């Protein structure tokens, strides 16, 4: 392994970790998307086939997985806006760390709005 240069703009700090998180969440969302299109395609087979497969998703474990998926999407979306500001805004590179904390703040607010309602649906019963 080549040794790491010290003191670069991104390595090992907010810039690198947000880049890692963007990749990891992107890969997760991509694989979910493949499965999501395939299971939704069952509406073309029959109502029974679609309802049977969707029915297997309606349990607490999948419900928590959906919460994790939404969390990944929300982070990827807000960090994507931050990445565009770094690219296109003249002061983007100067404020890239501050903007990551703004992203985390917006993430917490969005999830605070989403999670209680979703978990209520998942755990609240009919």
């Amino acid at each position, binding site marked *: 392994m080549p040794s790491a240069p010290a003191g670069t703009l991104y390595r090992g700090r907010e810039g690198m970790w947000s880049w890692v998180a963007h*990749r990891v969440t992107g890969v997760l969302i991509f694989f979910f998307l493949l499965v999501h299109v395939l299971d*939704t395609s069952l509406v*073309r087979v029959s*109502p029974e086939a679609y*309802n049977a497969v*969707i029915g297997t998703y309606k349990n607490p474990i999948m419900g928590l997985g959906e919460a994790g998926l*939404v969390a990944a999407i929300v982070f990827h979306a807000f960090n994507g806006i931050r990445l565009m500001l770094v690219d296109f805004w003249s002061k983007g590179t100067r404020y890239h760390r501050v903007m990551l904390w703004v992203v985390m703040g917006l993430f917490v607010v969005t999830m605070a709005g989403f999670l209680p309602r979703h978990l209520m649906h998942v755990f609240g019963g009919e």
Partner: protein
Amino acid sequence: MTTTQTQAAAQLPIENPGEAYKRRKTTRGNFELYSWVFMRASGVVLLVLIFVHLFVNLVAGEGITAIDFGFVAGKWASPFWQVIDLVMLWLAMLHGTNGMRTIVNDYAERDGLRMWLKIALYTAFVVVTVLGTLVIFTFDPCPADAPANLLPSFCTA
């Protein structure tokens, strides 16, 4: 102009004097530039589309518990949601596949492995995108042989 410069110019005549100066003479095209622009443009559109998708399907009404054939059929009976979901399908598949292509290029260092991973990736893209497109356009919200209680309410009206 000095004598040496005049001589150099005489030795190397400009081939096409009217042609615009090009910094890079050999090129493999601007594909990576367009791909970079596409990721940003599609990202903004996907943010809006997917947030609406998540709100309508998971937050509004009864949330995830309401999702069944009747719910999907109710949405796709409308051309509005058909177009929204078609655009979302294509943009998300292109955005996701292009992101995966970048990651494969970054980490799969052996030529053979990289080639096979990309063949698998592009195959998945074609199969899933074509399937999803066909389903949106050939979908029947009221299939004739299905039990009425599984169908959206407008089927019996």
